[in-house]
């Protein structure tokens, strides 16, 4: 409550400040000058914005996948978390996140962090900057929302709100700066020399978005502990089926739909006709991932598993996100197939070996396959596309003779894991030992909808929970 009030006062104060400071210095808010300078701007703006809208819509996909794969008694809480991480994320990214990520970066400090354009003020009041901000916001929000699923059904809502501010304001932007904002992973001399003209690359964010989200999710799920009843005393996992496969699969479709914007939009330009190849790769990798997961579960359990096939799509999509512009369709299918294997094994490994409870498979889908995407780029880049542009130098991977670039991607993989998992541990550890991160046992049993929001998601339906065979930990 108190924090609520404070936050509001703070925001109101900043608003007023903003309103006064704004108009004194600005670039091209009208857009007329930009149009004159770049006659291609309309088609590029409309492409980028429209793709950004699709990416924004992925929020709905995440909300549905996560709520569909968890229980009815937590459904309202989960969609609320998904809505609010976007909202808090947008305000945080507006206030500081974008400044850290894409603020002007010069000299050594610029390899670490950016530091202007706070609150989109001053020079940032410009049609091109705004376009970039919008497209980057929806990516930032995607990273933030990934964690939601892994910590579902037990995290305190207040802790989640704080988490979503921190990731959108600090954790995501700083790593993002290293790869996309002129930071050291992409632009330091060491890396560009190693890579042969370019450092670590990540076309649409297998690393920047998905691995960051996925490994923060791992940290969160680990520190929270498993849901009550998830593991028997001997550690055997107990299935806790989700309450709506239909909504979960609708979520998968929405995510796939949005992913075309995610990947193909990342050219930020329709004048890059390569967008068609990106779209093809995005379609094929998702399809291959699902196909593989379907056959694996069919083979292992005698029946094709629905929600795992959905995860297979997402795994393929995550994996192709980094390389999508630099590979050919055959490689996309291959990457998708491997992604399907990884998500299948990852889910099994976390659940059966590590006993880390990730209700929706976020770590395997976004974390493990995020890394696979970075490495796959280092392997399969086939030299038909440059560094985010048609112009050379063309990007080539290990299979095409550039071992240095593969090394860059390995370094990038290690860094993203260390950064996201490390900071994730710190953040959730601090939250755990201050305001607490986990709801009470009673609340968890009763459901977070009542506990956190005083409501029921489905008051007109008689609900139940399947009685499974198992002792309770």
């Amino acid at each position, binding site marked *: 409550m108190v924090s609520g009030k404070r936050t509001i006062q703070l925001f109101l104060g900043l608003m007023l400040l903003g309103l006064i400071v704004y108009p004194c210095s600005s670039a091209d808010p009208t857009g007329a000058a930009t149009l004159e300078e770049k006659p291609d701007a309309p088609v590029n703006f409309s492409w980028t914005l429209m793709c950004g809208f699709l990416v924004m819509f992925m929020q709905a996909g995440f909300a549905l996948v996560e709520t569909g794969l968890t229980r009815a008694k937590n459904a309202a809480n989960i969609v609320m978390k998904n809505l609010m991480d976007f909202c808090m994320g947008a305000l945080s990214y507006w206030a500081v996140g974008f400044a850290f990520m894409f603020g002007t970066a010069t000299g050594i400090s610029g390899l670490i962090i950016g530091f202007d354009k706070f609150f989109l003020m001053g020079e940032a009041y410009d049609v091109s900057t705004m376009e970039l901000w919008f497209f980057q916001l929806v990516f930032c929000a995607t990273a933030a929302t990934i964690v939601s699923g892994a910590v579902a059904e037990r995290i305190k809502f207040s802790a989640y709100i704080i988490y979503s501010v921190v990731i959108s304001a600090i954790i995501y932007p700083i790593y993002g700066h290293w790869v996309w904002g002129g930071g050291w992973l992409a632009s330091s001399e060491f890396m560009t020399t190693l890579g042969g003209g370019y450092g670590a690359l990540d076309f649409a964010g297998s690393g920047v978005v998905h691995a960051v989200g996925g490994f923060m999710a791992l940290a969160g799920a680990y520190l929270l502990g498993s849901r009550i009843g998830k593991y028997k005393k001997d550690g055997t996992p*107990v*299935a806790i089926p989700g309450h709506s496969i239909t909504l979960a699969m609708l979520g998968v479709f929405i995510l796939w739909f949005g992913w075309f914007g995610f990947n193909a939009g990342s050219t930020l330009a329709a004048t890059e006709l390569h967008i068609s190849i990106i779209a093809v790769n995005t379609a094929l990798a998702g399809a291959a991932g699902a196909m593989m997961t379907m056959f694996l579960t069919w083979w292992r*359990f005698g029946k094709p*598993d629905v929600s795992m096939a959905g995860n297979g799509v997402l795994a393929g999509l995550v994996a192709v996100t980094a390389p999508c512009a630099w590979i050919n369709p055959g490689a996309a299918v291959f990457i998708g197939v491997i992604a399907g294997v990884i998500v299948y094994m990852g889910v*099994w490994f976390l*659940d059966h070996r590590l006993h880390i409870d990730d209700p929706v498979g976020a770590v395997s889908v976004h974390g493990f396959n995020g890394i696979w995407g970075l490495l796959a780029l280092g392997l399969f880049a086939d030299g038909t596309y440059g560094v985010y542009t048609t112009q050379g130098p063309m990007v080539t991977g290990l299979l095409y003779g550039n071992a240095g670039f593969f090394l860059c991607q390995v370094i990038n993989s290690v860094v993203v894991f260390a950064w996201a998992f490390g900071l994730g541990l710190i953040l959730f550890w601090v939250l755990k030992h201050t305001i607490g991160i986990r709801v009470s046992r009673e609340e968890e049993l009763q459901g977070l909808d009542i506990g956190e929001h005083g409501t029921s998601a489905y008051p007109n339906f008689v609900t139940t929970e399947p009685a*499974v*065979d*198992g002792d309770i930990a």
Partner: protein
Amino acid sequence: MKKVEAIIRATKFEEVKLALEKAGIESMTVIEVKGRGKQKGITQQWRGAEYVVDLLPKTKIEMVVDDARVETVVDTICSVAATGKIGDGKIFISTIDDVIRVRTRERGTTAL
């Protein structure tokens, strides 16, 4: 008067209902329940792990009937609902002291 509670397979309900109708038993109350008896649960799978669902969905039919008709009801149900496989269900019979029809406040057998 007796109350006959029959717990049967949900997939057999439609047939049982028809058979009872033909036997002249039309009044009934039906409840969706879960249960287990000799039959153990079935194995389902979820995200690549198997699990046993312990209690299976069943349909419970409650009929309050004249003492005289109890055997007809039992007979009808047994002949239609039985598949011979475990899980066919149970019938419980208990005594009802009185019945009231809400609309007319009639009591006893005439209210059935």
